[in-house]
């Protein structure tokens, strides 16, 4: 099991989600983040003051996947999130010892397979 953590541009989130769903990766969590990297620095004005905005808005995805899915997930995110300009973000692949599904207590691979029967129409 791995967790794939991707930091992407917020305006690319819809593309990435769509691509992931198409690739049948349907379990994930996101959160808002801000990042610093090699991006062109933006400047903010507040009255007399000028400030550099060292941090840019990003979105963080955390996707728990079983090992066979790692490659496809990484490639999918990479393709969908890319604009080619500095600031596209990073993907980290982190090893996971154990995954549980809270609802059932199922573990590992079973835990990350969404129940396809209900919902997600």
């Amino acid at each position, binding site marked *: 099991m791995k967790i794939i953590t991707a930091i992407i541009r917020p305006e690319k989130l819809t593309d990435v989600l769509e691509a992931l769903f198409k690739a049948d990766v349907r379990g994930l969590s996101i959160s808002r983040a801000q990042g610093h990297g090699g991006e062109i620095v933006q400047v903010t004005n507040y009255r007399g003051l000028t*400030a550099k905005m060292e941090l840019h808005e990003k979105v963080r995805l955390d996707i728990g996947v079983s090992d066979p899915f790692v490659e496809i997930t990484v490639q999918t995110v990479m393709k969908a999130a890319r604009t080619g300009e500095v600031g596209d973000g990073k993907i980290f692949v982190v090893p996971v010892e154990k995954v549980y599904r809270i609802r059932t207590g199922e573990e590992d691979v079973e835990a990350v397979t969404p129940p396809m029967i209900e919902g997600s129409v």
Partner: protein
Amino acid sequence: MSGADTGWMILATGMVLLMTPALAFFYGGLVRSKNALNTMMMSFASMGVVGVLWAAVGYSIAFAPGSAWTGDLRFALLRGVGLDAKGSIPHVLFMAYQGTFAVITAALVSGAIVERMRFSAYLVFIALWGLVVYAPVAHWVWGGGWLGSMGTLDFAGGTVVHVNAGVAALVAAMVLGPRRDHGRQAFLPHSVPLVLLGTGLLWFGWLGFNGGSALAASPVAALAAVNTVLAPMATALVWMLLDAIRTRRMTAVGAATGIVVGLVAITPAAGFIGPRAALALGAIAAFPSYYGILARSRTRLDDSLDVTPAHGLGGIVGALLTGVFARAMWGGGDGWIAGKPSQVAIQGVGVLATLVYSGVASFVLLKAVALVVPLRPPEREEAVGLDVLEHGEEAYSSGEGAVLVLSDGGDR
């Protein structure tokens, strides 16, 4: 001159003035937070740009005696606009009251092109639009121009303000083209409470907009104000029911939109129809705009905040229904129900003239502005949001730590 009328009209001026910030909140809440300040600045900047130009020449174009088409320049730079009476109030107050109308009408247009227009291009556009489009149309109807002479009934600006802004918005949305992610992304309002705040303040201000158009603290002012209370209530109720029937839920944005549509629709009729007719007019007006918005959102037309269906369609419906419901006993003229069906046609002419003139002129102005400065920012800017790149600000800063101070000046 009358103290009662003066007091009332000072307040009406303040109330209409407040409508422009209110519009900023209404529009600002509907966009994404990365464009919230840009959207609000489109309204606030109109107070500076259109307001000052109104005092400089716009007022004279609109309200000085002149031809059937425009006023002459005798009041330019407020020459001769002082404390002498205009009706029962000081002339200078009449000028300022009308100025608040010009400011908000220009700001209304912005709703169609939010999240994708260069701010400098926008400023130049509304500066010109206020003088070339708004002022003449105001002259036609209220300044002694041809529509007024023809007998068009427009109590507080259904045609001058709303049809006018609505068609300019349509043209602007078409000229600028859709936002780059339009149709692929659901643009959800970043703050519905802000939308509701705008709605509440707009409604309050609109009592000055419609009631003040009587230019006196008269029974007609009272009637206009009461109708401005009643009609939107009916529109909101119908709107909520339409929502419930279609989706089994009533949205807050829907209720707010319904209220605004009701306010738009009652505007031309406010002092000309009775309160029961106002309720009817409000209820009827819900339908075209409701289904207009539904239809619009199924097209590629990115009239982002639905200015055309809400203000354009709402204004047209209001103008025509004024011709239906008007009754001379309330203070204006008779309409269809009172036995003068031709009034509907007269109303139609007013609408049509405004549609054509404002549509063509807005198109020409935008194309002219585009020659000088590109109307749209680069794609990256649209993606990141206009607040940071066009204004150097964020609507909501987390504040802590994220930003370091530069030791000097302001050039980016």
